[in-house]
């Protein structure tokens, strides 16, 4: 039950206006602190679900396939520049962010992580991590301002952050599995935070972010 308490506490802190403003003022903390922590809160919460409910969910989530898909699709939305702007401009979209990241990203990923198996996890990470790096690169290289609510230099910082996180996570996971710990990563003994923290990207957003730069759309010119 300690996990459930941490999850509630974490969510309560994140939802406080002061914390929200502080994390959302800067793009890199919005993307790489607030969003992963919201997912982490969901992951911790899911780990505290009663066994009966978990097995009923598992019946719809063999091999962790549906959970991983859900987390990938929903998290990809929150990497789209428009989604970040939208959340800042519209309270309803902001509320959607606070609901979907824990419930539709963190929780399903935590519930799927162990049943994914080392192959499934490897597949997931091999898809997600390079895409983070690509999205990060798109943010760094974009010739225009992509978010109306963030300055250009913040966009670059967020991009660098994404690239670093994807490489660091890839190296860590690679080392862990090379050292033969891959089985233990999958077990329930590993803090679910880990699953939640690594859940903020996926293919569709990444591919489309590349399209942004390729087309030169998103024509927010830079000014000072």
């Amino acid at each position, binding site marked *: 039950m300690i996990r459930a308490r941490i999850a509630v506490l974490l969510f309560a802190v994140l939802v406080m206006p002061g914390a929200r403003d502080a994390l959302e003022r800067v793009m890199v903390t919005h993307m790489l602190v607030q969003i992963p922590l919201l997912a982490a809160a969901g992951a911790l919460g899911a780990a505290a679900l009663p066994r009966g409910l978990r097995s009923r969910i*598992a*019946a*719809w*989530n*063999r*091999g962790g*396939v*549906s959970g991983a*898909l*859900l987390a990938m*699709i*929903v998290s*990809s*939305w929150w990497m*789209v*520049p*428009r*989604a970040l*702007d*939208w959340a800042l*401009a519209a309270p309803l979209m902001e509320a959607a962010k606070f609901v979907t990241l824990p419930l539709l990203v963190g929780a399903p990923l935590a519930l799927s992580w162990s049943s994914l198996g080392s192959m499934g996890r490897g597949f997931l990470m091999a898809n997600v991590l390079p895409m983070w790096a690509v999205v990060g690169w798109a943010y760094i290289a974009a010739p225009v*301002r*992509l*978010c*109306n*609510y*963030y*300055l*250009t230099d913040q966009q670059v910082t967020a991009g660098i952050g994404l690239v670093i996180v994807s490489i660091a996570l890839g190296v860590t996971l690679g080392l862990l599995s090379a050292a033969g710990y891959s089985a233990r990563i999958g077990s329930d003994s590993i803090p679910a935070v880990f699953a939640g923290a690594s859940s903020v990207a996926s293919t*569709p957003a990444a591919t*489309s*972010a590349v*399209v*942004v730069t390729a087309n030169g*759309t*998103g*024509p*927010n*010119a*830079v*000014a*000072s």
Partner: protein
Amino acid sequence: MAPKGDWVRTAVASLAICVAGGALLWHGTDGFRALTTETARRRAIAAAPTPIPVVQLEDQDGRLFTLDRYLGQPVVVDFVYTGCGTICPLLSDGFRRLDRAERSATRDSGEQRLQLVSITFDSLDTPARLREYASHYAADGRSWRFARVRERNDLDSLLRAFGIVLISDGRGGFQHNAAVHVLDDRGRLARVLDVGASPDEVARAVTGASP
């Protein structure tokens, strides 16, 4: 071993997730064509022209006017401030080109149709400063006027209607989405073009907006 039915359920759930998730992503990005707020704004405006509130403007010579005095005429609007060192000069260079092209095209008839209005959002921009800025860009104050908004509330509603977001850069300046805004003959915001849009592009947008 998991029962066979579970794999069927999982397949059904996965399919439903892909369909629903794909539909939401499709909807949220206008069919994967608008990944940024700016692109979405331009697409929405082109699809359905936006009414612009009538607010009192004061030009570089202290004359008061409103945008609806140009009804029936094509009007192109941009938002600048005189202290801006990066994008606004590009906008103003583009407007100078538009102004020159229009003047030479209508030299014989003597009647210039296209009206250019540059609106400042910086409270430091007085008519005097605007006049100096205008003369730097050879704006005559007739076909191309620089203007400030008299009331703070009016400025906010005008910026909201045009979809301009200002953020302070912390050094007394702003970052802002910069674009060339074409109003149709009914005074609605009908097209948004890139900074530096050529006279031809503007002419096409004007024709498209008010056929």
